[in-house]
C-alpha cells in the first residue's frame, strides 16, 4: 500500500520528462518523410536562360545540394552570404531553385537575377520554379530549405531554415565526405 504513494510521483516525473523534451524541440521543424527516399524528379528552366532546362537527372553520380530560396524570403537574405562563402571552398555543388507562389504577381525572375548579381552567386546552377510545383514536390514549407542528395539521387539530409556555419561544419561537410567515398 505504501509503495503506491510513489506511483503518482513516478507518473509526474514521466510527464515532466516529456514536457522537457517537448520544450527543446522546434515545433515548426517537421521531419521530412523524404529523407532516405529518392529525390523528386524535376526539369525546370534555367533562371538566367529560360530556353535551357536543367534536370535533377543531370546530377546523377554526384553528391549535391539543392537550395530552395526566393527574393521574397527574409531568412534567405540572411543565409546568402554564408552560401557564397561555402561555395568558395568548392566542397559540393549547390543548385539553387528560385521559387515563387502563384499568388505573387511580381517579376521574381528579374528580382532573382538582380539579387545574384548584387550579392554574389553561390550556385553552380540556378533554376526557376515559376508555379512552386517542384518546391511542393520537395515538401518545402519554410524557405530557405536545403536538401543533400547522394550519387544515387537519394535525399540524405534536409535543413529547414538557413544553413548556418554550425550546420555546415558539423552536418553537411562530414556527410558530403562520407557520401563521396
Amino acid at each position: 500500500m505504501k509503495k503506491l504513494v510513489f506511483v503518482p510521483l513516478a507518473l509526474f516525473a514521466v510527464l515532466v520528462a516529456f514536457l522537457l523534451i517537448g520544450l527543446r524541440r522546434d515545433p515548426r521543424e517537421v521531419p521530412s518523410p523524404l529523407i532516405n527516399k529518392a529525390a523528386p524528379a524535376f526539369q525546370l528552366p534555367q533562371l538566367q536562360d529560360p530556353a535551357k532546362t536543367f534536370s535533377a537527372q543531370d546530377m546523377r553520380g554526384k553528391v549535391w545540394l539543392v537550395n530552395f530560396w526566393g527574393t521574397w524570403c527574409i531568412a534567405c537574405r540572411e543565409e546568402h552570404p554564408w552560401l557564397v562563402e561555402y561555395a568558395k571552398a568548392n566542397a559540393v555543388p549547390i543548385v539553387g531553385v528560385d521559387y515563387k507562389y502563384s499568388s505573387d504577381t511580381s517579376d521574381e525572375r528579374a528580382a532573382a537575377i538582380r539579387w545574384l548579381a548584387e550579392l554574389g552567386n553561390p550556385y553552380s546552377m540556378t533554376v526557376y520554379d515559376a508555379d512552386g510545383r517542384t518546391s511542393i514536390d520537395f515538401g518545402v514549407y519554410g524557405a530557405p530549405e536545403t536538401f543533400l542528395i547522394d550519387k544515387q539521387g537519394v535525399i540524405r539530409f534536409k535543413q529547414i531554415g538557413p544553413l548556418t556555419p554550425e550546420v555546415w561544419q558539423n552536418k553537411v561537410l562530414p556527410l558530403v565526405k562520407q557520401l563521396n567515398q
Partner: protein
Amino acid sequence: MTARRTNSECLRVSFVSLWLNSSIGHSPQRHREPQRRTKILLSIAALLGLGFLPAVHAQVARPIEDPAIEARMKHLTKELRCLVCQNETLADSQAPLAEDLRREIREQIKAGKSDSEILAYATQRYGDFVLYNPPVKATTYLLWFGPFVLLIGGTALLYRYVKRRRDLIEAEPLTVEERQRAEKLLKEM
C-alpha cells in the same frame, strides 16, 4: 530564428496587435501630438490594407469553379494542416503556400484522383503531421491508446483501493461497547 521564418501571412495579426499596443502605450510625447499620431495610424492602416490587396485581387480574378469540386476540396482541405500557419487548416489558411496547395488539390480532383490518393499526395511530401486525423500505427499507438490505458489503469487502481478499504472496515466490526456509545451519541443529536 523561428519568428524570422514565420510567413508574413501569419505575421499580419501580430503587426496589428503591435500597432494597437503601441497606440495604447504610455508615451507622453505622443499624447502631446494627437494629430501626428492619427496620421501615423492612418498610414499604417493604409499599408496594412495594401498588403491585403493582392489576395483580394487574386480571388476576384479566379474563374468560378464547379461547386461539386469545391465542396470536395473544402472537405479534403479541412483534414489537412497548413505547415506555414500550423494552427490552421489548409481550407482556412491565407498563406500563399496554402493557396498553391489548394490549386494542386483542385487539379487532382479534376484529374479524377480519389480522396485517399490526394491525402497520400500530401503525406508523401509533408509527413503525417499534415493530417489533422493522424493514422493509427506503431509511432502513434501512445497518442491513440494512451488515454484509454490511463483510464483503465486509473479505474483499476481506484477499484483496488476502494475494495481494500471495504475489507478493512469489515475486518474490524464494532464491539458491543462501541456500538452502545455510538447509539447514545446519535440519540443526543
